[in-house]
């Protein structure tokens, strides 16, 4: 059984519009109105505290905090005429509840509270959508101590909570009131939609490969070798020697260049139907070989599997974490998790995101979803766009601000038609054309680490300025 709230007083505005009594009408006579929440309340997910401060004495008393709430916009209105004392509410309505019951007031750490209703018809883009009871009501509490004033919000859905906090922040910006919080609301909401964490971990024996590819001076060496491996599965000995010669120098050490690529004996085995290519690492003594082209170089088996399956995602994640992209600060990175933004449990709405980044600048956040593809092509960009539209944009949840598609190699059929002077090329577009939610995407290649970081900085600036 959910919570029942009894609020005394004769006037709760538009009661029948805001609260829908689901299991029979509990009572509207004698001036009491009730609402009944069907679903259990996960208090920890929906409690949010905003700390307010201003230069003058505009927030001197609790009534000033209430007045701030009254100014947030016509879509946010009090359902209670005067604020209720929290201790009185606990005493009156929760005295007889059992410890295991869901409590409404116990955890609201504020001296006075109001019930606040949201009129979604007045919110842009929400007029046509049907809203649940949980989306139409908030508990808002006011508190002060010697150091600070705060507004506590207890919400039963992220939609009204996000609206309320955004309005509060906008109000603060206009009237020079600082509004801050210890928790990141965007991330709170994102995690509600997360259904699965990443299970694979980078094997210990492959960390060395990852670590060496992340070094600026070695990156291009590895990429050249990988390019060959992607085509043939191995590198011819003289090609490998040429590549090493190109990169061997003060900043690169031979032992590192040699560490990951081992020689294999290449044999062609013919039978009646086909020719098989066979690589064997049984090379006892290279000096006993008579012809060079019998030997090729490739990654060790376990590193090859890692390279094919996990390396590039790990590489991108580590590159992002290790490089400073000031003035944008990386607040959070979550890798390989699966989300369902529709919250409907349908498999075809699940979306695995290679990396979810939260960047902050001047108190504002942006969340970027990163897709890593070792080789980017026109078709995989098109397919990724389609998935992002179907599984993220169309959910209507405005939790992701932009998308990055990052590749190590670029197929000929993909045209990166824009350029950032001196840094490199990229492609961009907008997802959700014609829909209410639209978001930009940026496609680029990692040609080297430095320029990739510069590109990300440029894109983040565009996202923060324009989206």
């Amino acid at each position: 059984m959910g919570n029942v709230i009894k609020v005394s007083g004769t006037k709760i505005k538009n009661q029948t519009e805001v609260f829908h009594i689901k299991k029979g009408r509990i009572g509207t006579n004698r001036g009491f109105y009730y609402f009944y929440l069907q679903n259990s309340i996960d208090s920890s997910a929906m409690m949010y505290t905003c700390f307010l401060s201003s230069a003058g004495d505009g927030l001197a008393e609790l009534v000033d905090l209430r007045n701030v709430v009254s100014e947030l916009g016509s879509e946010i209105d009090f359902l209670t005429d005067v604020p209720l004392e929290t201790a009185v509410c606990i005493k009156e309505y929760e005295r007889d509840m059992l410890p295991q019951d869901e409590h409404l007031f116990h955890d609201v750490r504020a001296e006075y509270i109001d019930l606040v209703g949201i009129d979604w018809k007045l919110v842009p883009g929400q007029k046509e959508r049907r809203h649940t009871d949980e989306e139409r009501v908030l508990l808002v509490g006011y508190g002060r101590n010697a150091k600070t004033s705060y507004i506590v919000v207890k919400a039963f859905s992220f939609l009204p909570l996000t609206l309320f906090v955004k309005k509060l922040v906008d109000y603060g910006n206009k009237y020079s009131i600082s509004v801050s919080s210890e928790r990141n609301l965007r991330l709170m909401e994102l995690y509600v939609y997360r259904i699965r964490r990443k299970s694979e971990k980078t094997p210990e024996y492959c960390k060395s490969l990852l670590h060496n590819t992340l070094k600026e001076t070695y990156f291009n060496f590895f990429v050249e070798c990988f390019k060959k491996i992607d085509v043939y599965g191995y590198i011819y000995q003289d090609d490998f020697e040429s590549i090493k010669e190109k990169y061997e120098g003060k900043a690169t050490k031979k032992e590192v260049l040699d560490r990951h690529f081992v020689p294999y004996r290449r044999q062609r085995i013919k039978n009646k139907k086909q020719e098989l290519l066979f690589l064997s690492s049984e090379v006892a003594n290279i000096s006993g070989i008579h012809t060079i082209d019998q030997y090729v170089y490739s990654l060790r088996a376990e590193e090859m599997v890692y390279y094919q399956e996990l390396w590039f995602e790990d590489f991108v994640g580590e590159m992002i974490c290790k490089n400073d992209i000031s003035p944008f600060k990386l607040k959070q990175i979550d890798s390989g998790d699966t989300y369902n933004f529709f919250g409907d449990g349908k498999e075809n709405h699940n979306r695995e995101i290679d990396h979810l980044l939260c960047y902050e600048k001047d108190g504002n956040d942006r969340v970027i979803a990163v897709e890593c593809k070792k080789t980017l092509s026109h078709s995989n960009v098109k397919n990724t766009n389609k998935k992002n539209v179907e599984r993220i944009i169309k959910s209507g949840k405005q939790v992701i601000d932009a998308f990055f598609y990052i590749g190590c190699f670029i197929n000929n059929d993909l045209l990166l038609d824009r350029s950032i002077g001196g840094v490199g090329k990229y492609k961009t577009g907008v997802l959700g054309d014609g829909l209410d939610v639209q978001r930009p995407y940026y496609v680029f290649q990692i040609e080297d680490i430095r320029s990739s970081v510069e590109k990300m900085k440029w894109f983040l600036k565009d996202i923060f300025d324009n989206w």
Partner: protein
Amino acid sequence: MGKNLSQQECRSMFSDRFATLSMKEIGSELQHFRKGTAPENPSHLVNQVEAKAEIQKRFNSFTDENGGNAEIIFLHGHYGNGKSHFIRSIYCFLSRYENVNTRVVTLKSSGENFFRIILACISQQKIRECARFIYSEAVNLTGGNDTAELTNTIDEKYGLNAVQANLVIDIANSGDIERQSKAIAILKNNYLSSYLKDYGLKKGDLDDGFYMNVVSIIALYLQKTDQYLVAVFDEFEHVFSWGDKERKRLFSEIKYFTDYINQLGRMMFIFAITDSVEWTIEKDDPALWSRIKGETCFINKIESTRDARALFQMILKRYEKYHNIMLQDYSDDILERVDNSLRDENELNYRIYTQKMMYELDRYREELYKGKNQHDKRDTLGNGNVENLRQEKSSDGEWIKWRQSSSVSRKTLIADWIEKMIVLLGGRLIKNSRRRGEIFFFYRDLEYHAYEAYTDYPSIGSFNSKLSEINETEDYVQVLIIYPKFEGEITNEVKYRTVLYNESSLHLFLDSLYQPNEKDLDDYLNYLSAGIE
């Protein structure tokens, strides 16, 4: 710290904010245009010159430093012609200012009291600030906190009666959030009956005069603190669905209000009304009409081709930026399609035009995209080089490519077109360095070195910079500089032949490459420069 509204600031009320729009804002506007609804925060209001001028005039008077006047404006217009757009433009503009309190009011319930409506526009915060202001002044005057003395002082100085003074003192000083909230509710005429007992009041004590007094004191406070209140009443025509008795009472209250308008220097009320043949204020209440007809301005219908073009250009600018596409050259074609599609419509308004324009822009973009895809496929086969250009029968495909290209690619395209020109002239190519923009060739026994460039932001500075990169020492070489036209004139002496092009002349030049007439180099360069040299 927010800005303050002033007469100077009001001049930019209807300026086009396109330059400051983020992509998200542009996308949102375009989405509204598709649906035929007003954007939440409109960036530009096209046409409506007279209405805008009238509103600006009223705001000039309202924000006059020497004592502005309170204003009432009735904004009339027919369905779909941009009333909401107008109101939101004004509202959103004013909302940016810290010293302007803005409200949009929709008259939903029948029989609403006008003073209650006005007081609903005044926030609880403002009532509290006003109370603290009055209280603070009274304390300074009396030198103490004695309630009786304070009450008398407030009465003398502000003309508030004892009840009103006590309410003010409670709001400012009681420290009890419940008591303060109740007192504010009484002053806002939004109270429960039970609150009146605390102040020994009866409902009859709280009449129009009581609330007119409250409104006046708020107006005084706004004046002393350099603040404004602007309330916009949207869909005012709803009053015509009220009963006669309620509507007449409302009109009577508005008339009463207008008698005291001069006391309300810092308040402005804008009423937006959709006109109808069935009901007008003039027919319904001639007395009210006679008082307010001087305060009326009209939103015009879309009636001329010029109006339609202005609307289209506003939408096009945003569309082009958002979709990174150039459609200006196709304007006539698109507008023709719009006009054709509207031929059978009985009633034309801005909404219908806006929706149709968006529809045709979307269609055009899709057609161009399909055309580009066809072209890209050919490019993949032929590597997009001059050989392919030779095989094309018209310049359309190349121009589509130009439209879709980045500045880097455009430089390459120009190089390819110049190379085609050399082939058509029967010249001999020496080198075509597309990346450097250097095309060297022989033509009629002379050696030419052409240096071409493309930039989105040509300027005299960038042109001079380009010149400085050129190091030609041989007298026999004919040097050509091909550069985008920029603002201003070439000030330094340029010893090379310079051809400045713009998009139109470039298109002409491209077309000339597909026309069979005999031409020489000067002919082609004349197309390219189109008279600018």
